[in-house]
Protein backbone atom coordinates (compact mmCIF):
# COMPACT_ATOMS: atom_id res chain seq x y z
CA UNK A 1 0.00 0.00 0.00
CA UNK A 2 2.94 2.31 0.66
CA UNK A 3 3.99 1.86 -2.94
CA UNK A 4 0.55 2.85 -4.18
CA UNK A 5 0.65 5.94 -2.01
CA UNK A 6 4.07 6.80 -3.32
CA UNK A 7 2.87 6.44 -6.90
CA UNK A 8 -0.12 8.64 -6.19
CA UNK A 9 1.80 11.23 -4.19
CA UNK A 10 3.60 12.52 -7.25
CA UNK A 11 0.43 13.56 -8.98
CA UNK A 12 -1.46 14.89 -6.00
CA UNK A 13 -1.93 18.61 -5.64
CA UNK A 14 -0.86 20.31 -2.48
CA UNK A 15 -3.55 22.04 -0.51
CA UNK A 16 -6.15 20.83 -2.96
CA UNK A 17 -8.68 20.40 -0.23
CA UNK A 18 -9.59 23.90 0.83
CA UNK A 19 -13.33 23.29 1.05
CA UNK A 20 -15.78 21.01 2.79
CA UNK A 21 -19.10 19.39 2.07
CA UNK A 22 -21.78 22.04 2.42
CA UNK A 23 -19.68 24.84 1.00
CA UNK A 24 -20.71 26.75 -2.08
CA UNK A 25 -17.73 26.63 -4.40
CA UNK A 26 -16.57 27.83 -7.78
CA UNK A 27 -14.65 25.28 -9.84
CA UNK A 28 -12.46 26.76 -12.55
CA UNK A 29 -12.30 23.92 -15.06
CA UNK A 30 -10.14 23.96 -18.16
CA UNK A 31 -11.95 22.96 -21.32
CA UNK A 32 -10.00 21.98 -24.42
CA UNK A 33 -11.71 22.65 -27.72
CA UNK A 34 -9.43 21.52 -30.47
CA UNK A 35 -6.42 23.78 -30.19
CA UNK A 36 -7.95 26.42 -27.96
CA UNK A 37 -8.30 26.17 -24.24
CA UNK A 38 -10.69 28.11 -22.06
CA UNK A 39 -11.79 28.09 -18.47
CA UNK A 40 -15.36 27.34 -17.49
CA UNK A 41 -16.63 28.13 -14.02
CA UNK A 42 -19.02 25.73 -12.37
CA UNK A 43 -20.53 27.21 -9.25
CA UNK A 44 -22.66 25.25 -6.84
CA UNK A 45 -23.00 23.41 -3.58
CA UNK A 46 -20.52 20.65 -2.77
CA UNK A 47 -22.77 17.79 -1.69
CA UNK A 48 -20.31 14.91 -1.42
CA UNK A 49 -16.69 13.88 -1.32
CA UNK A 50 -15.72 10.33 -2.15
CA UNK A 51 -12.68 8.05 -2.17
CA UNK A 52 -9.25 9.04 -0.97
CA UNK A 53 -5.77 9.75 -2.18
CA UNK A 54 -5.40 10.54 -5.83
CA UNK A 55 -8.79 9.02 -6.57
CA UNK A 56 -10.70 11.53 -4.49
CA UNK A 57 -13.69 13.15 -6.20
CA UNK A 58 -16.29 15.71 -5.21
CA UNK A 59 -19.80 16.40 -6.44
CA UNK A 60 -21.05 19.91 -7.10
CA UNK A 61 -24.77 20.59 -7.47
CA UNK A 62 -26.42 23.67 -8.87
CA UNK A 63 -29.83 24.63 -10.19
CA UNK A 64 -29.53 25.67 -13.81
CA UNK A 65 -32.68 27.11 -15.43
CA UNK A 66 -34.80 25.27 -12.88
CA UNK A 67 -33.09 21.94 -13.46
CA UNK A 68 -30.75 20.41 -10.94
CA UNK A 69 -27.31 19.74 -12.43
CA UNK A 70 -24.63 17.72 -10.70
CA UNK A 71 -21.07 17.37 -11.78
CA UNK A 72 -18.39 15.10 -10.38
CA UNK A 73 -14.81 16.34 -10.50
CA UNK A 74 -11.63 14.44 -9.67
CA UNK A 75 -10.07 16.58 -6.95
CA UNK A 76 -6.53 16.19 -8.24
CA UNK A 77 -7.32 16.64 -11.91
CA UNK A 78 -4.79 18.83 -13.68
CA UNK A 79 -7.69 20.38 -15.56
CA UNK A 80 -8.98 22.06 -12.43
CA UNK A 81 -7.34 25.45 -12.43
CA UNK A 82 -8.49 26.41 -8.96
CA UNK A 83 -11.34 26.03 -6.54
CA UNK A 84 -12.80 29.06 -4.82
CA UNK A 85 -15.00 28.96 -1.76
CA UNK A 86 -17.90 31.37 -2.07
CA UNK A 87 -19.66 30.56 1.15
CA UNK A 88 -19.00 28.15 3.99
CA UNK A 89 -21.93 26.00 5.00
CA UNK A 90 -22.90 24.48 8.33
CA UNK A 91 -23.87 20.85 7.78
CA UNK A 92 -24.16 17.84 10.02
CA UNK A 93 -23.56 15.06 7.56
CA UNK A 94 -20.94 14.03 5.05
CA UNK A 95 -23.27 13.46 2.11
CA UNK A 96 -26.01 15.97 1.32
CA UNK A 97 -28.01 13.77 -1.04
CA UNK A 98 -31.26 14.73 0.75
CA UNK A 99 -30.96 18.17 -0.88
CA UNK A 100 -31.95 16.65 -4.21
CA UNK A 101 -35.49 16.14 -2.97
CA UNK A 102 -35.87 19.54 -1.36
CA UNK A 103 -37.04 22.70 -3.05
CA UNK A 104 -36.95 26.34 -2.06
CA UNK A 105 -35.92 27.19 1.43
CA UNK A 106 -35.63 23.56 2.50
CA UNK A 107 -32.79 23.11 0.02
CA UNK A 108 -30.76 25.78 1.74
CA UNK A 109 -27.63 25.19 3.75
CA UNK A 110 -27.02 27.52 6.65
CA UNK A 111 -23.87 29.55 6.61
CA UNK A 112 -21.08 28.43 8.85
CA UNK A 113 -20.30 31.10 11.38
CA UNK A 114 -17.03 30.63 13.14
CA UNK A 115 -16.23 32.64 16.20
CA UNK A 116 -13.35 35.04 15.91
CA UNK A 117 -10.56 34.43 18.30
Amino acid at each position, binding site marked *: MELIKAVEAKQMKENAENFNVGDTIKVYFKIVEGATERIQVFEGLCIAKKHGGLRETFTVRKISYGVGVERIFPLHSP*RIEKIEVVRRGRVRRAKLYYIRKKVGKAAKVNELITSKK
Partner: protein
Amino acid sequence: MIGLIGKKVGMTQTFDDSGLLTPVTVIEIKNNYVIAQRKADKEGYNAVLLGAYEMKKKRVKKPYSGQFPENITPKKHLREIRDFDIDCNIGDKLGIELLEDLRFVDIIGTTKGKGYQGVVKRHGFRGGKRSHGSKFHREAGSTGMAASPSKVYRGTGMPGRMGAERRTVQNLRVVKVDKDKQIILVKGAVPGRRGGLVIVKNAKKKE
Protein backbone atom coordinates in the same frame (compact mmCIF):
# COMPACT_ATOMS: atom_id res chain seq x y z
CA MET B 1 10.84 -13.11 -25.36
CA ILE B 2 11.53 -11.12 -22.24
CA GLY B 3 9.93 -12.20 -19.00
CA LEU B 4 10.35 -11.27 -15.37
CA ILE B 5 8.80 -12.31 -12.08
CA GLY B 6 6.90 -9.61 -10.24
CA LYS B 7 4.27 -8.96 -7.65
CA LYS B 8 0.94 -7.23 -8.09
CA VAL B 9 0.84 -4.30 -5.69
CA GLY B 10 -2.63 -2.97 -6.44
CA MET B 11 -4.56 -0.60 -8.60
CA THR B 12 -4.83 3.16 -8.79
CA GLN B 13 -5.30 5.86 -11.42
CA THR B 14 -3.03 8.29 -13.18
CA PHE B 15 -3.70 11.52 -15.02
CA ASP B 16 -2.07 11.98 -18.41
CA ASP B 17 -0.95 15.31 -19.81
CA SER B 18 -4.38 16.26 -21.10
CA GLY B 19 -5.98 15.45 -17.76
CA LEU B 20 -7.53 12.13 -18.75
CA LEU B 21 -7.62 9.42 -16.13
CA THR B 22 -6.14 6.01 -16.83
CA PRO B 23 -6.77 3.05 -14.53
CA VAL B 24 -3.47 1.35 -13.82
CA THR B 25 -2.15 -1.70 -12.03
CA VAL B 26 1.11 -1.31 -10.14
CA ILE B 27 3.49 -4.26 -10.44
CA GLU B 28 6.66 -4.48 -8.44
CA ILE B 29 9.60 -6.15 -10.12
CA LYS B 30 12.52 -6.61 -7.79
CA ASN B 31 15.74 -8.35 -8.62
CA ASN B 32 15.36 -11.50 -10.66
CA TYR B 33 18.32 -13.88 -10.66
CA VAL B 34 19.26 -16.29 -13.36
CA ILE B 35 19.35 -19.63 -11.58
CA ALA B 36 19.88 -21.98 -14.50
CA GLN B 37 19.86 -22.21 -18.27
CA ARG B 38 18.01 -24.80 -20.31
CA LYS B 39 19.66 -25.57 -23.60
CA ALA B 40 18.13 -27.17 -26.66
CA ASP B 41 20.86 -29.74 -27.05
CA LYS B 42 20.47 -30.99 -23.49
CA GLU B 43 16.94 -30.34 -22.34
CA GLY B 44 15.33 -30.02 -25.75
CA TYR B 45 14.32 -26.39 -25.44
CA ASN B 46 15.86 -23.02 -24.68
CA ALA B 47 14.90 -21.21 -21.50
CA VAL B 48 16.24 -19.46 -18.47
CA LEU B 49 15.19 -20.26 -14.93
CA LEU B 50 14.56 -17.09 -12.98
CA GLY B 51 14.28 -16.81 -9.23
CA ALA B 52 12.93 -13.96 -7.17
CA TYR B 53 12.19 -13.00 -3.58
CA GLU B 54 14.19 -14.16 -0.61
CA MET B 55 13.19 -17.12 1.53
CA LYS B 56 13.21 -17.43 5.28
CA LYS B 57 16.29 -19.41 6.14
CA LYS B 58 14.49 -22.09 8.11
CA ARG B 59 12.13 -22.79 5.22
CA VAL B 60 15.01 -23.69 2.90
CA LYS B 61 15.39 -27.42 2.60
CA LYS B 62 18.68 -28.88 1.45
CA PRO B 63 17.40 -30.57 -1.73
CA TYR B 64 15.74 -27.30 -2.73
CA SER B 65 18.78 -25.17 -2.07
CA GLY B 66 21.01 -27.51 -4.08
CA GLN B 67 19.83 -26.16 -7.41
CA PHE B 68 21.00 -22.61 -6.73
CA PRO B 69 24.46 -21.44 -7.81
CA GLU B 70 26.90 -20.91 -5.05
CA ASN B 71 26.81 -17.14 -4.73
CA ILE B 72 23.02 -16.92 -4.76
CA THR B 73 20.73 -17.42 -1.82
CA PRO B 74 17.68 -19.66 -2.36
CA LYS B 75 14.71 -17.86 -3.86
CA LYS B 76 11.05 -18.34 -3.09
CA HIS B 77 9.69 -18.27 -6.61
CA LEU B 78 11.17 -20.00 -9.63
CA ARG B 79 9.85 -19.65 -13.15
CA GLU B 80 11.19 -20.75 -16.50
CA ILE B 81 11.00 -18.22 -19.31
CA ARG B 82 11.25 -19.85 -22.72
CA ASP B 83 13.42 -18.43 -25.51
CA PHE B 84 14.85 -15.61 -23.47
CA ASP B 85 16.14 -12.93 -25.84
CA ILE B 86 18.71 -11.34 -23.59
CA ASP B 87 22.11 -12.88 -23.20
CA CYS B 88 22.71 -13.71 -19.57
CA ASN B 89 24.79 -16.00 -17.48
CA ILE B 90 23.93 -17.99 -14.42
CA GLY B 91 24.00 -15.71 -11.41
CA ASP B 92 23.10 -12.55 -13.32
CA LYS B 93 20.76 -10.02 -11.76
CA LEU B 94 17.96 -8.87 -14.02
CA GLY B 95 15.65 -6.03 -13.18
CA ILE B 96 12.99 -3.72 -14.42
CA GLU B 97 15.33 -1.98 -16.86
CA LEU B 98 14.64 -4.79 -19.34
CA LEU B 99 11.06 -3.59 -19.65
CA GLU B 100 11.86 0.08 -20.12
CA ASP B 101 11.44 0.28 -23.88
CA LEU B 102 8.34 -1.87 -24.10
CA ARG B 103 5.03 -0.34 -25.06
CA PHE B 104 2.85 -3.37 -24.48
CA VAL B 105 3.18 -6.37 -22.17
CA ASP B 106 1.43 -9.67 -21.54
CA ILE B 107 0.85 -10.54 -17.91
CA ILE B 108 0.38 -14.00 -16.49
CA GLY B 109 -1.19 -14.43 -13.08
CA THR B 110 -3.35 -16.73 -11.01
CA THR B 111 -6.95 -15.54 -10.78
CA LYS B 112 -8.74 -15.13 -7.48
CA GLY B 113 -10.43 -18.30 -6.24
CA LYS B 114 -14.20 -18.00 -6.35
CA GLY B 115 -15.03 -21.30 -4.59
CA TYR B 116 -17.92 -23.54 -5.62
CA GLN B 117 -20.03 -21.57 -8.08
CA GLY B 118 -23.19 -22.20 -10.06
CA VAL B 119 -23.54 -22.22 -13.79
CA VAL B 120 -24.68 -18.61 -14.08
CA LYS B 121 -21.46 -17.22 -12.67
CA ARG B 122 -19.18 -20.00 -13.83
CA HIS B 123 -20.34 -20.50 -17.40
CA GLY B 124 -22.44 -17.43 -18.13
CA PHE B 125 -25.78 -19.26 -18.36
CA ARG B 126 -28.59 -16.79 -18.51
CA GLY B 127 -30.79 -18.29 -15.78
CA GLY B 128 -34.53 -17.92 -15.64
CA LYS B 129 -36.95 -15.24 -14.59
CA ARG B 130 -36.74 -14.18 -10.97
CA SER B 131 -40.50 -13.62 -10.63
CA HIS B 132 -43.74 -13.73 -12.64
CA GLY B 133 -44.47 -17.23 -11.38
CA SER B 134 -41.21 -18.62 -12.68
CA LYS B 135 -39.78 -21.46 -10.67
CA PHE B 136 -36.58 -21.60 -12.71
CA HIS B 137 -34.04 -19.15 -11.41
CA ARG B 138 -30.36 -20.03 -11.58
CA GLU B 139 -30.48 -23.77 -12.34
CA ALA B 140 -28.43 -25.48 -15.01
CA GLY B 141 -31.52 -27.03 -16.64
CA SER B 142 -31.16 -29.96 -18.97
CA THR B 143 -27.67 -31.30 -19.53
CA GLY B 144 -28.42 -33.59 -22.45
CA MET B 145 -30.83 -35.28 -24.80
CA ALA B 146 -32.67 -38.63 -24.43
CA ALA B 147 -32.07 -42.36 -24.96
CA SER B 148 -29.83 -41.32 -27.75
CA PRO B 149 -27.07 -40.45 -26.89
CA SER B 150 -28.01 -41.52 -23.31
CA LYS B 151 -25.01 -39.78 -21.84
CA VAL B 152 -23.97 -36.28 -20.90
CA TYR B 153 -21.43 -34.88 -23.32
CA ARG B 154 -18.04 -34.04 -22.04
CA GLY B 155 -17.52 -30.34 -21.49
CA THR B 156 -21.14 -29.64 -20.54
CA GLY B 157 -21.25 -26.63 -18.22
CA MET B 158 -21.94 -27.62 -14.65
CA PRO B 159 -21.39 -26.09 -11.22
CA GLY B 160 -18.03 -26.50 -9.56
CA ARG B 161 -14.86 -24.87 -8.36
CA MET B 162 -14.11 -21.61 -10.10
CA GLY B 163 -11.08 -19.38 -10.25
CA ALA B 164 -7.52 -19.84 -8.97
CA GLU B 165 -6.39 -20.61 -12.52
CA ARG B 166 -3.44 -19.39 -14.53
CA ARG B 167 -4.55 -16.70 -16.90
CA THR B 168 -2.74 -14.45 -19.38
CA VAL B 169 -3.88 -10.94 -20.19
CA GLN B 170 -2.45 -9.76 -23.47
CA ASN B 171 -1.52 -6.35 -24.81
CA LEU B 172 -1.63 -4.24 -21.67
CA ARG B 173 -0.22 -0.80 -22.37
CA VAL B 174 2.79 0.21 -20.31
CA VAL B 175 1.96 3.57 -18.76
CA LYS B 176 5.18 4.07 -16.85
CA VAL B 177 8.32 2.30 -15.71
CA ASP B 178 9.80 3.63 -12.50
CA LYS B 179 13.34 2.40 -12.06
CA ASP B 180 13.89 3.87 -8.61
CA LYS B 181 10.86 2.25 -7.06
CA GLN B 182 11.23 -0.84 -9.26
CA ILE B 183 7.65 -0.71 -10.39
CA ILE B 184 5.84 -0.81 -13.70
CA LEU B 185 2.39 0.68 -14.30
CA VAL B 186 0.18 -1.02 -16.87
CA LYS B 187 -3.22 0.09 -18.03
CA GLY B 188 -6.10 -2.04 -16.84
CA ALA B 189 -6.53 -5.04 -14.59
CA VAL B 190 -4.25 -7.98 -13.99
CA PRO B 191 -5.31 -11.44 -12.76
CA GLY B 192 -4.93 -12.28 -9.10
CA ARG B 193 -5.04 -10.73 -5.70
CA ARG B 194 -2.83 -7.96 -4.37
CA GLY B 195 0.56 -9.42 -3.55
CA GLY B 196 0.02 -12.24 -6.03
CA LEU B 197 2.83 -13.48 -8.23
CA VAL B 198 2.73 -12.34 -11.85
CA ILE B 199 5.00 -12.83 -14.84
CA VAL B 200 5.47 -9.80 -17.04
CA LYS B 201 6.39 -10.60 -20.64
CA ASN B 202 6.75 -8.51 -23.74
CA ALA B 203 3.54 -8.56 -25.77
CA LYS B 204 3.43 -11.50 -28.15
CA LYS B 205 0.98 -9.96 -30.58
CA LYS B 206 2.18 -6.36 -30.70
CA GLU B 207 5.22 -4.84 -32.40
